[in-house]
């Protein structure tokens, strides 16, 4: 009987965990769709953006562009480390890449945080009309997701250093990769909308 049930489980195209994360991304997409939809409504309601009341505000496009690069690189390293685990390369490679991914994620958050401090210093706050509010809410919502992904990745790195992953058994790193790449892929859309629209 037990063998039969294991066969039933093995016949699944996706593991439960992987499917669950993919389904979660559907909900995340709708959450950001709600926020982006709100942003577009405000953007289209104003002929100029930023609105005239905040015409002096300049968002740091260049720094954020470089930051975008860091995040995209972290997505690539994350994917490469998954591939290395899958084809059974020595653990050292995947461990280094996983730690590099996490570091890039942290660097992204730190640069973002320092930008926020500067912008608040220049007078752009949550209370600065819908321009400031959408900026902080959209970017902040994404930052919370990156932060969550970094925590998740930290746990995965701990498991990896303990040698828990093999080419047949690496669901935790696979699900984390799916989520990480989703968060990375979301960023350029937000970057374009918030900084250039």
């Amino acid at each position: 009987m037990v063998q039969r049930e294991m066969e039933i489980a093995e016949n699944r195209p996706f593991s439960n965990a992987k499917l669950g994360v993919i389904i979660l991304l559907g909900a995340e997409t709708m959450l950001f769709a709600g926020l982006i939809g709100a942003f577009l409504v405000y953007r289209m309601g104003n002929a100029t953006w930023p609105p005239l009341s905040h015409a002096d505000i300049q968002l740091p496009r260049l720094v954020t562009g470089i930051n975008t690069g860091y995040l995209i690189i972290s997505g690539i390293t994350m994917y490469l480390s998954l591939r290395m685990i899958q084809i059974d390369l020595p653990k050292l490679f995947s461990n280094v890449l996983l730690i590099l991914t996490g570091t890039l994620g942290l660097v992204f958050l730190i640069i973002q945080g320092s930008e926020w401090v500067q912008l608040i210093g220049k007078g752009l706050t949550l209370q600065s009309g819908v321009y400031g509010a959408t900026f902080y809410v959209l970017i902040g919502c994404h930052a919370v997701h990156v932060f969550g992904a970094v925590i998740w990745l930290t746990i995965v790195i701990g498991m990896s250093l303990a040698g828990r992953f093999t080419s047949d058994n690496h669901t935790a790193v696979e699900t984390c990769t799916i989520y990480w790449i989703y968060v990375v892929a979301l960023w350029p859309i937000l970057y374009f909308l918030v900084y250039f629209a």
Partner: protein
Amino acid sequence: MQENDNRSHEHDNDENHDAAHEDHDTVEHAPEHNGDDHDAHAHHHEEGFIRKYIFSLDHKMIGKQFLIYGLIMLFLGGGLAMLFRWQLAYPEIPELEGQAGRGAKPLPFLGLSDEYQETGEPKTWADRYWEKVFDSEETEWTEEFIPAGVMTGAFYNMLFTMHATIMVFFVVVPILVGAFGNFLIPLMIGTRDMAFPVLNMLSFWLAVLAAVVMVSGFFVPGGHASAGWTGYAPLSVDPGWTGVGWGLNLWAISLLIQGFSSLVGSINYITTIINMRAPGMTFFRLPLVIWALFIVAILLLLAFPVLSSALALLIFDRLAGTTFFSTTAGGGGDPLLWQHLFWFFGHPEVYILILPGMGIASELIPVFSRKPIFGYRSMVYAMIAIAFLGWIVWGHHMFQSGMQPGMGAFFMTTTMLIAVPSAIKTFNWLGTMYRGSIRFTTPMLHAIAFVSMFVIGGLSGIYMANTPVDVAIHDTYFIVAHIHYVVFGGSLFAIFGGIIFWFPKMYGRYMNDTLCKIHFWLTFIAFNCTFFPMHILGVGLHRRRIDNPMATEHLFGFEGMNIFITMSAFTLGVVQLILAFNFVWSIYKGKVAEKNPWHVNTLEWEAPTPVPHGNFAQIPTVYRGPYEYSVPGEESDWLPQAQPEHAPASAGD
């Protein structure tokens, strides 16, 4: 128990167990000792009280927890409705030209003596008790909320806001999706538990936390949220409009928590249904209630995050000084955006409330008509069509909010299109009953009530989908009648039917049928007496607000009708106590049920009663669809899904 099983299952046991005999030697002792296997459930041991009844990981216990949670909240939400019906029946009658007014007519307090109500001197024990609890020096409850015998507008607004919020988010969804979903999905698809049992428990306890936060809002200064369950901005944004401070913040926070609970639950349901079906259980052999729950889980997954985003923006507006939805000058806020976001969630939510009810009706009607469901696949496609159309009709809630006329025509057309799949389903239910050998058991009565009330609610829906008609009847009692015909007449009758139908599997006992029948007929009559006259009130342009139903001449004729509705509503409320009593009493004292009392085909009835941890001694194999009743050439009129073909010759196809 075992004897009962054998009696009701004679042919089932002969064939099913013989066919499975080859596995028997290995199967027999598996659940008890299998020390080295990989199945967590197989070496299950007896758990302590807390793990078994409170922080349970078992889908059946979580389902029952959701059921009891929903029933408790049902009485809270119903009680709020009683309170504002009380006011509506006894409005103050103003003095108008040529018409003698009646001034502020105090609300009648049942049981209090006339002297006490006039002079304030307690006469009877009821007077003294009332004074002590509600009107003492410290509480002054009546002084605050019902001064001079008339409810304040703020109190009234709070009552109907919280009635709707609790009924939608804390009663119908937890029972239909939480209780029936958790209990039925693993049993009906033939697996041992949900895909993520810990997340399942988390989903329930998040829902409890949400309920605690929601109820705590009643006790904060300023009262609970009173901007309507739709929380329209800017009414909900600026405390200056409603006088509500933390009440509305708690309302929004509670719904955010409820959103997490739904998210976790729906991920669990979708994964379980996609990944964990028993061998042979193809998608088109799933019982329709599972299809309904699957579609609803997708709707919840995708709709609730939109509400969450709107609620987050609302909380920022109220607490952090942003201006997303407010009308503050220079802020650039857009109150109409709230309505779009809310109804983009809100309309799929309406189908979340009704689709599981449709699924339950689709289970009950074939069983008690002893006929296959008419048009199984069209039932599935109709549900998918309803779910899809639900995403593109949200604007029909906003015809009065200012909309480009072309958009109005678009939303009107798409809304009316929903009548097509709904009619497919209705006619399929009728086609299932047509020339069946109908058994009028109480669950079947509830299912028939579901279909007929749903038709009335659906037809009034077509009226208001019409933009010009809706412009007139917007926010009148016609709308109230419509939603209650669909959600009470539809969803709640399905819930009652489902509870009575699956009670033998949940608790191993029957509910008392006499009490069930009394409850059904009284509910059915009181329900129609309560909500049908509301159509007439609505067409007479009676708006749904406290201030003041009798203020204008065209409403004078409706006073008697309002009193009648209130009397019926109180009857309806009191009658539900019969159900509550019957439910609790039957858990302990009901007649012990056999394994498959209604002779149903689906897999949940293959499991022993009461269902053990892990559900099935061995995972069943599914050989056919769920509705093979009265198959020609068969000895009995039912053919369970897990029963193998008895003649090997027929295996050729």
